[in-house]
């Protein structure tokens, strides 16, 4: 089959070019993309690759000749007939994706459409929902009309699980206002505005049934992201000590007995005293109350201790934050811990009370666990875990006796400091717990 190669426009809008040199002769066999000709345009000197594989049957001009774009430059006899030119591709056709180890499968979420669909399906009706369903459409214009509402109102509607298109707006030009959304979301007004139902896979107690699939969202998603951030960026090391709690338990009894208000005395727990002592030890070892700032190449030591208290709630792990812990008295700290953990369990904390900690303490002992390796609350530098206090056999002055002990575990960012610093912190805390009167020297 004979094919001509017309002089291409190798620039943008060029009209002609001069053949500087032929790189092949008539009769030569050439391969696809083999350089055949050097041309010069007003813009550049350019080598032309052969568009075909086959035999060169004719060169249509000599060196130095100038041709107009579109004139035949050379001809080929093709070694194998080219397949018929591909038919025009219809957008939306199934295409064969490039076979590289990345990229999405056919049903990649394409943003607005997928989002509209998700929003529709989130309402919980099992029917097939098209992207357009639920969106009012003004047929005279041909454009699907979105309900009028300001972005914060849309956000509110989304949070409350209210479908805006089902709300009639009381604002100017039918704008949907906050009040409209709130009214639509109120319990007396169920229906399409009902809140997002929990994952249907969950059983009555919120535990998934065997074989079910649970959507990762909300607190679970946040915890997952935090853990991945921590474990994928922080090279952590862990150290631990066993601590004798006998003196601290005696102190707890004494303090409780001296407090008249039972509401106050009930907040004095071994954990709240440990927190107070940990704050003292942390204040003396500020490097553990820092963050590693990778882009800046800096370790930022925080000016105060904003203490995160890892708290187990029905929704999952939450970390309420006790601000400026180094400035609180033991009673204030104990009261705050009690308030924060209770509020976290009841879901009554403001977003601000759940972010921005600089150091976190996990009381995994409250779950009855003796030992564990806590994961650092990214981007902090360290985390302290407190195990369960139990009577255990220990050796005192060469004798085996039963003592109330617990294990303290500290995971730390090894970029920020070494075992020596983490160990100093942990040993100091151990000493303070075993001989709480030493704390007097530090207050």
């Amino acid at each position, binding site marked *: 089959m004979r094919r001509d190669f017309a002089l*291409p426009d190798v*620039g943008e809008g060029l009209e002609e070019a001069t053949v500087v040199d032929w790189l092949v002769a008539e009769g030569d066999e050439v391969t696809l993309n083999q350089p055949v000709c050097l041309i010069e345009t007003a813009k*550049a000197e350019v080598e032309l690759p052969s568009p075909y594989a086959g035999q060169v049957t004719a060169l249509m001009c000599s060196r130095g000749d100038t041709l107009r774009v579109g004139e035949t430059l050379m001809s080929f006899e093709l070694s194998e007939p080219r397949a018929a030119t591909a038919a025009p591709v219809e957008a939306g056709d199934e295409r064969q994706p*490039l076979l590289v180890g990345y990229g*999405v499968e056919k049903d990649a979420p394409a943003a607005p459409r997928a989002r509209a669909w998700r929003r529709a399906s989130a309402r919980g009706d099992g029917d097939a929902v098209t992207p357009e369903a639920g969106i009012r459409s003004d047929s005279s214009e*041909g454009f699907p009309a979105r309900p009028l509402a300001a*972005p914060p109102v849309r956000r509110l509607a989304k949070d409350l699980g209210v479908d805006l298109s089902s709300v009639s707006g009381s604002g100017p030009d039918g704008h949907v206002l906050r009040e409209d959304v709130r009214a639509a979301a109120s319990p007396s007004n169920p229906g399409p505005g009902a809140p997002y139902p929990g994952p249907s896979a969950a059983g009555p107690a919120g535990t998934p049934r065997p074989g079910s699939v649970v959507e990762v969202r909300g607190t679970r998603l946040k915890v997952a992201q935090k853990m991945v951030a921590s474990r994928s960026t922080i090279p952590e090391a862990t150290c631990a000590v066993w601590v004798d709690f006998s003196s601290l338990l005696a102190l707890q009894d004494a303090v409780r007995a001296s407090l008249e208000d039972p509401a106050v005395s009930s907040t004095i727990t071994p954990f709240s005293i440990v927190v107070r002592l940990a704050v003292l030890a942390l204040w003396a070892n500020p490097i553990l109350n820092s963050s590693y700032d990778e882009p800046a190449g800096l370790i930022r030591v925080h*000016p105060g201790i904003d203490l995160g208290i890892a708290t187990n709630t029905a929704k999952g792990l939450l970390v309420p934050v006790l601000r400026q812990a180094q400035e609180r008295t033991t009673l204030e700290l104990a009261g705050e811990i009690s308030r924060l953990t209770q509020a976290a369990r009841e879901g009554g904390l403001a977003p601000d009370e759940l*972010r921005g900690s600089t150091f976190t303490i996990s009381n995994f002992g409250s779950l009855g666990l003796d030992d564990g390796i806590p994961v650092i609350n990214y981007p902090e530098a360290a985390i302290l875990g407190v195990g369960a206090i139990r009577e255990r056999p220990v050796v005192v002055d060469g004798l085996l006796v039963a003592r109330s002990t617990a294990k303290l575990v500290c995971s730390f960012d090894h970029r920020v400091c070494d075992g020596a610093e983490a160990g100093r912190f942990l040993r100091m805390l151990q000493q303070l717990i075993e001989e709480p009167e030493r704390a007097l020297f530090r207050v």
Partner: protein
Amino acid sequence: MAITDRAEAPVAASTLQVLAPDGAVVPGARYPFELSDADHVGMLTAMTVTRRLDGEFVNLQRQGQLALYPSCLGQEAAQVGITSATRDNDWLFPQYRELGAFVVRGVDPAGIGHMWRGMAHGGTGLIEKCCAPITIPIGTHAPHAVGYALGAKFDGVDTVAVTFIGDGATSEGDVHEALNMAAVFQVPCIFVVQNNHWAISVPLSAQTRVTDIASKAAGYGMAGVRCDGNDVLACRVVMRDALLRAREGRGPTLIEAVTYRMGAHTTADDPTRYRSEGELELWRRRDPIDRYRSHLVAAGIWTAQHEERATETGERAAKRLRDEVFDAPMPDPLSVFDHVLSRRSGELERQRRQLARETGRDAT
């Protein structure tokens, strides 16, 4: 997180590098240990395929099949390193030189080829892979990315917008507005500046008085980081950090990937008129693919079999492009009415019937 927020706006002091030009790990580098062997193989394969496909685009232009093509030769590491760190539902807002990003996302090269051929159905196949259209005007897509990110923030959707711009685009007003707005609203948007040193024939020194584009981030109050754009692992590491920052609601990042455009600005440009062979030679020695391959071969991750497979995949992609694009006829003119709006209005229907009448087609 008041304390760390203030810490988010440091001036990038140095250029982050993981691999030296000879492929050895730089002492003290933040090596991305989380990557599996398969990840590494996937990245080098994508870079290899990008280079092969890029060459085929240039060939097709030289054969009169494409109106124009801007080669990404030499910038494979920046594009593959950045894009491979994203999730498939993070949206990319490309300029026009991001073939490597498209290869990572698995975009069909045919749609890109039709776009450069000037076909009515050019640029299809991008949206499905969460890629915005190829943008010819400089930097106008940066505000689009910020808008998308702002919308995602309002909606509470876990996605990040990534916009690719060049050193030249940093002089554009659109880009300034986008950077400022992204910082003010703390949106999940990442600005990737591929500093390839030349805006057509304008060198960086004539573009800006600073030598470090990442330092501009400080003026917007956002994190700025500079990495070796020919070091795919460095690009991956800085992008991983930036994505994490965005997903945690800690705001946008300006990444400057220092790289070099080894080819012409586009097929209509002759770079020998404004830059020296010596400069090109310097950057040839920093070739991103050679560097990464040396590293992976030394690490025992990349074998002759991988090389062969990557070459085959590149050839297959090039053939797919050629088969689709070469001498391809224009699609039916009436099809333009099918792909712009989701439904036809009365006016569009009227225009469609008129075009059908004028071109002697059946309007049904």
